[in-house]
C-alpha cells in the first residue's frame, strides 16, 4: 500500500508539472501553481520535519 501511495504521489507530481508549464493554458497554470504551493505549505505545517525519525 505504501508503494501504491508513492506511485500515486509521483503521478500527481507529474500532473502538476504538466499543468504548471502551461500545457492546459495559462489560467490552469496559475491555479496549479497556487494549489501546489499552498499544498506544500500545508505539508510543512502538518508534518514538521524536525520530529522525524532518523
Amino acid at each position, binding site marked *: 500500500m505504501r508503494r501504491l501511495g508513492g506511485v500515486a504521489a509521483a503521478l500527481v507530481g507529474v500532473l502538476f508539472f504538466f499543468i504548471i508549464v502551461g500545457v492546459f493554458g495559462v489560467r490552469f497554470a496559475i491555479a496549479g501553481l497556487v494549489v501546489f504551493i499552498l499544498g506544500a505549505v500545508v505539508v510543512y505545517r502538518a508534518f514538521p520535519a524536525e520530529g*522525524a*525519525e532518523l
Partner: protein
Amino acid sequence: MRLDPSILARIQFAFTVSFHIIFPTMSIGLASFLAVIEALWLKTKDPLYLQIYKFWLSIFAMSFGIGVVTGIVLSFEFGLGFAPFANMAGPAIGSLIALEVLTAFFLEAGFLGIMLFGLHRVGPKLHFFATCMVAVGTLISASWILAANSWMQTPAGVEIRDSHLTVVNWRDVIVNPSWPYRLPHMLTAAYLTASFMVAGVGAWYLLRGKHQSFARRTVSLGTAFATVLIAGQVFIGDLVYGTMLKHQPSKMQAAEGFWEKQSQSPAPYYWFIIPDQTNQRNRFEAGIPYLGSIWLTHSLRGRVEGLRNTPRDRQPIMGVVFYAFRIMYGLAILMFTMGVVSLWLRFRGRLFSSRWFLWMLVFMTPSGIIATLAGWYVAETGRQPWVIYGMLRTVDAISPVPAQALLSTLIAFVCVYAVFISAFLIFTLHIIRRGPAAAPPHADASGSLKNAFRPHVLDNPARVVNRRIA
C-alpha cells in the same frame, strides 16, 4: 598561425562572464537566505540559527568577493573587446549600469563590512538591517543588469540619430519586452541555487552522521524553499519561453532541434540530436513522441517551427542552444522531482532517513549553478549572430585590438581565474569539513549600539577571539 580577433574576443568575454555569473548567482541566493536565517534567529532566539548564519556567512563572503572583482572586469570588458558595441549601446545600457552602481553596488559594499565584521560592534537589529541591505542590494543589482541584458535581447525605446543611438523613452528601455519575465526567472534561479547548496551540505552531514541538528534544520529549510521555488520557476520559465518565442523566434527554433519550417505532426520532444548546420538538418535525432506537440504547442498534434524559418545569415548555432537548453530544462525537471519527493518523504516522516534521497541532494548541490549557466548560454548564444538583437551583429562589434593581445590576455584570465576558483573550492570544502562551530550557550551578538560608541571596550584582551580560521 592566423588568429581571428572576433573569435578570441568572444571566447574571452564568454569565459569571463560565465565564470562571473557563478558567483552572483550564489551571492544573491545566499544573501537572502542569510537574511531569512537572521530574522528567524532574532525572532526565536534559537542559537541553531546563529550557527547556520555564521557557517554560511563565510562561504557567502568568499563568493561575494570573487563576484565583485570578476564583475568589475566585465564593466570594462565591453570596451576592451567590443568597443563598437560600447559606443553604440553606451547611452542605453551604460546609463542602466551607472544606476546599478549608484543604487546597488554602493549599498552592498557599504553594508557588507558591517554584515561581515560588525556582529560585535553594533546591536543585533542594526546588524540584521545590514544583512537585509546587502540582500536588497543584490536584488536591485540583478534588476538593473537584467534590464541591460534584456535590452540587448529585445531593444526598445531608442532611435538612431546622426548614426548614434539616442534614448527616447526610458520606460521602454528598462521595462523592455523581455525584462519583466527574465528578472524573476534569474532571481528564482539564484534562490534555487542557494536552496540546493544549503540542502546538499546538510544532506552530506546527515549521511556522515555529524552535526545532526544543523543538518536537519538546513535540509528541511533547503528542501522547503526549493520545492516552492522550482514550482514557481517552471511557471516563470514557460512565460519567458513564450516571450522569447515572440520576440526572438530564431532562439527558440534553435533550442528545440527542429529544422523543417513545420515539423511533423505530432512532434516529438528531442533529447538528443546531432545537428548539421551546414546542411540544415539533423544527422541523428531521438526524443519522446508526442511530447513536443504537448509541451511546445499545448496540443496533441501541433507542429513546431524549425530553424529554417530564419534566414541562414541570422541563425544561431543549433548545437549549443539546444544542449544548453536541455541541460537547464532537464535539471529543472530533476529539481521538481526532488521537490515532490521531499514533500512525500515529509508526509511519511522519512525526510532525514531516506539515504538515496540524501545522496541525490548531495549530487544536486551545484545543480542551481549548472542550470543557471546553461540558461545563460541559451540566452547569449541564442541571440547570435546579434549582440544587440536586430541592430548590431557581434562580428561588427569587435575592438581594434590585435589578436595576439586578445590571446595573451585570454590566457592570463584563464590562469588567474583558475586560481580563484581552486581557492574558493578548497576553502569551501575545508569549511564544510570543519563543520559549523558549536554555538555558545549565550548566543547573542555581543555588540550593542552603546558599545559602538565606545569601541575601545571591544579591545579587552579578556575576550575570547577566533580569527575565522582553521
